[in-house]
Structure formats: structure tokens, C-alpha cells
């Protein structure tokens, strides 16, 4: 095999960027789902309490 210079910084940068972005997207989506579920539960609870007090 012919001698090639060290290209590991390029390889490391590619993997770090791709895996880093994937982790950020995945964690971001999971946190958003958790937050939206909690918010919906709070709004539904509030609506139920209002209905009960109105009746």
C-alpha cells in the first residue's frame, strides 16, 4: 500500500459531527416529548377541575 498522510483528524471530525448531531436530535426529541406530555397532563387536569367545579 502506498504511504498516505495521517487523515484521522478528518475522520474523527466526521464521526464526531455525525454522531454528535444524532445524539442532540435524539435527546432533544425525547425531552420535547416528555415536556409536551407533562404540559398536556397539566392542561387536561386543569380543564377537568374546571368542569367539576362548574357542575
Amino acid at each position, binding site marked *: 500500500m502506498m504511504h498516505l498522510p495521517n487523515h484521522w483528524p478528518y475522520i474523527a471530525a*466526521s464521526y464526531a459531527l455525525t454522531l454528535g448531531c444524532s445524539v442532540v436530535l*435524539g435527546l432533544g426529541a425525547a425531552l420535547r416529548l416528555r415536556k409536551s406530555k407533562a404540559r*398536556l397532563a397539566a392542561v387536561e387536569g386543569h380543564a377537568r377541575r374546571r368542569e367539576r367545579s362548574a357542575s
Partner: protein
Amino acid sequence: MRPTPNLLHRYANPGQFLRLAHALLPWLSSGAILFLVVGVIWGLFIAPADWQQGDTVRIMYVHVPMAWLASSCYLGLAICGVLSLVWRHPLADLAAIEIGPVGACAAALCLITGSLWGEPMWGTWWVWDARLTSMLVLFFLYLGHIALIRAFDEPARGQRAAAILALAGVIDLPIIKFSVQWWNTLHQPDSITLTGAPTMSMMMLWPLLITTIGFTLGVAAVIFTRLSAAIHESRARQLLARSRLDRRDSQVA
């Protein structure tokens, strides 16, 4: 409005979709993690170096999946566009809003990892080659879609305009795919085709397939999660709006 086919009709119900997403998400995420761990270790440390490119060929194991995902997500946007324009599928517009940024991320990563490969191999970060340029156009189409779908005060107008853009932009997908055959490009021709045998060693093909499956499962999990979150947010907004209306009615009475 045309009648919706049965399968589409079933998942037009957000509750039904949430149940499906809840059942699929653990499998998609654990599959993604498993395939990515195996694929990345195989691609980085076990797969052989190329006789011409040396270790730089390892960038292919993340670059090719990103290219595949950028194109697939855009096809997903176009399908959502058809579902929205023809059948007024209630989840299609929400799905388009959530797929756009994920696809844009994949397209950006494809361009960046391609540049990181091009600098040591071609001696330049960028050339106005047909494959690279058509992929850059796809990235701009994503940005246009993301901007357009949020650009109007009335969401339905933005969603309709973005659906039309998604359908018009689909012409870029065959251009990306066949650019290396139609034009004399610096980018190498496809190593994997549906009709012919792959032109790369199986020792390189396996990690490529494994990382591609891993990233595909991961993106599916992210899109399902984002769409589920969007449905919850939309329900919360509707409930809040209704309670505000009720309060106003009771004040008037």
C-alpha cells in the same frame, strides 16, 4: 376531497398514531443504538483501509447514510405533501413540519462529511460538481420548506405552500441519483446499485449497510418522537383555547 384509503384513514387518527408510535419507539431506538455501536466500531477499527484512499475511506460509513437519509426524508416530505393536498390527511402537515429539520440536518451532515473527505482526497473542500451541487440544492430546498411552512399567520396557507414546494423539489432527487451518470463528475459513480453487484469489498459493504440501517432506525425514532410531541402540543393548545373561550362565555353570561 377524495376518499382516503383504509390504511391512511386508520393512521389519520392522532390517538391511533400515538399508540403505534408508543409501541414502535423502544424497538426503533434500541435497534438504532445497537446497529450504530456495531457499525461505527466495525467501520472505524475493523474494516480494512482502502488501497488508494487509506483510512479516509472510513468517512464513507457516515457520509453515505447521511446522503441516503437526506434523500429519503425529502421523499417523505413529498409524500406528506401529496397526503396533505389530495386527502387533507390531518397528520401529514404536522409530519412535514417535523421531518424538515431532520432532513436538513442529514443534508448538511452529508455536505460537511463530504467536504471532510474531499479535502484530503481531492485537495479541495468544495467543487461545483453535479453531485455536490444537486445535494446543496436539496439542502436549500429543505431550508425553503422550513421557512415557508412557518411563514404565514394562517398555518394552513404555509402548509399548502410548503407542500407544493416539497412536490416541486422532488425533481432534485433523480438529479442527485443520476448526476454521476449524466455528467462527467469528480464525485465517483455509485458503488451500490439495485441492478448490479456492488463494486466494493464485502468487508467494507457490511459496516456500510449496518451504519445505514442504524441511522435510518434512529431518524425514524426521532421523527416518531417529534411527531408525537407535536400532537401532544397541539392537543394542549386546543384545550387551552377551548378553556379560554368557555371562560369568556361565562363572563359574558
